[in-house]
């Protein structure tokens, strides 16, 4: 006969992990903010991270943005053609990219590429005692490891999203003119006329939150690797899944918040 299932213990275990994560990330955020205000500041490490997070992610972001814009234009065009709504395609594509698809897809790509990289790199440093060595040599892993990565994401993600928005709209324009037979000049003019500052703010504002959703959990899971290399893989998976979920779920709430802000503008 199998042993009876201990439901309270099971529930405790299920609840414990997310609570530990929330507490851990809160403490990491507190330490990061505290250490940001003290010297020294490792500028060269920040530049390295900007290169790794930004420049190295650019091809992936460009491909994602281009294909997203092209697919959206095609789907909107084919769907609206029956109702004579093809002229609305530029507006719809631009608005969707600026508000949602640009920030969300770029962030998801970054969560997959950069989040995984950060968690596995930091986790490996824990396993090989490099993080201990940073501490033993009288320096701070928060300053050396966490702050450059968080700042790099905060600087780079808005820039990547801006580029993604341009490329996505370019993809829409290409499909609009070639597949939907919309005039290129018309398409371009419609995008400029119908996109406004509110669209930019709604999309751009989210990127700072998404940057934190990527960098902080990735650093947290990396730093909390304990039992050897097997945990590095687990930490990497957790970092990507958590960052992606935070981006997707957070997007809804942020959309609501920015919608309220838009009413004031």
């Amino acid at each position, binding site marked *: 006969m199998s042993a009876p299932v201990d439901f309270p213990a099971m529930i405790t275990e299920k609840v414990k992990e997310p609570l530990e994560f929330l507490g851990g990330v809160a403490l990491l955020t507190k330490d990061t903010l505290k250490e940001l205000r003290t010297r020294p500041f490792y500028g060269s490490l920040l530049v390295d991270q900007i290169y790794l997070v930004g420049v190295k992610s650019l091809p992936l972001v460009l491909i994602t943005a281009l294909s997203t814009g092209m697919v959206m234009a095609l789907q909107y065009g084919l769907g609206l053609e029956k109702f004579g709504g093809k002229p609305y395609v530029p507006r719809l594509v631009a608005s969707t990219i600026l508000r949602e698809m640009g920030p969300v897809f770029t962030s998801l790509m970054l969560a997959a590429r950069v989040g995984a990289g950060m968690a596995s790199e930091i986790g490996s440093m824990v396993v090989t005692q490099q993080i201990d060595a940073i501490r033993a040599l*009288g320096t701070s892993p928060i300053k050396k490891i966490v702050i450059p990565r968080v700042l790099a994401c905060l600087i780079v993600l808005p820039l990547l999203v801006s580029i993604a928005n341009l490329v996505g709209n370019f993809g829409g324009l290409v499909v609009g003119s070639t597949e939907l037979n919309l005039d290129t000049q018309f398409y371009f003019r419609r995008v400029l006329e119908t996109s406004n500052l509110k669209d930019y703010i709604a999309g751009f504002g989210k990127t700072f939150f998404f940057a934190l959703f990527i960098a902080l959990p990735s650093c947290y899971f990396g730093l909390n690797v304990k039992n050897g290399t097997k945990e590095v893989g687990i930490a990497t998976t957790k970092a990507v899944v958590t960052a992606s979920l935070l981006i997707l779920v957070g997007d809804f709430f942020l959309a609501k918040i920015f919608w309220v802000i838009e009413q004031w503008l």
Partner: protein
Amino acid sequence: MALIEIVNFKKAFGTKIIHENVSFYVKKGECLGLVGGSGAGKSVILRSLIGLEKPDSGQILINGVDIVPLNEQELIPVRKQVAYAFQGGALFDSMTVYENLAYPLRAHTELVETEIAEKIHHQLAEFGLEKSIHLYPGELSGGMQKRIGLARAVIMQPEIILYDEPTAGLDPYNTRKIQELILRLKATGVTAILVTHDIPTAMAVCDKFAFLKDKVIAEQGTIDQLLSRDNSLIQQFIEGNIL
């Protein structure tokens, strides 16, 4: 006066108790060999001496200052004074040997780059590792990594050095090299604690020993004092049966 003193040190991981009321001291210039079976918690004590682990209770006195209540910021002066030679070297693999050795100097001294370079060249020459200056840790053998790790640990001229299994997994040549380095550092008056399973190195280097067994220090004293006691544990150690 004791430079390092551990008083009633207790440590558990979850429900597993590792240490109960561990106490010992090391005087200035002495080298203590901390020995015991695998999993006895020798490295836990060593890590606690530099604040990498916190005991559940007890005191750790370095130069008379209890480091247990200190936070990371307050531990920095202690960590400048106490060097830790990690088992695997713990070199930063994204940096060259030069950058690894420059790391503590850049963090804690006002030396200009030419002075740093001079100090690093001198240190590497002393350790017989000049040729590896521009190599990355991945390009070095295990023995060389340990020696560079030791060179990095002592470049700030600490008062205390904690050696965590410095000769583990090394061939006889590298073991002898490390042993020579430890003896040379000892001759400069550095206080040390050596965690090891390597009996010849321990016998050659240590002034006294502390035996960890069943969560406590079972025996401690100089080798002469220990040999005068009719204790099977010490016999096992000398015969190399404590692993």
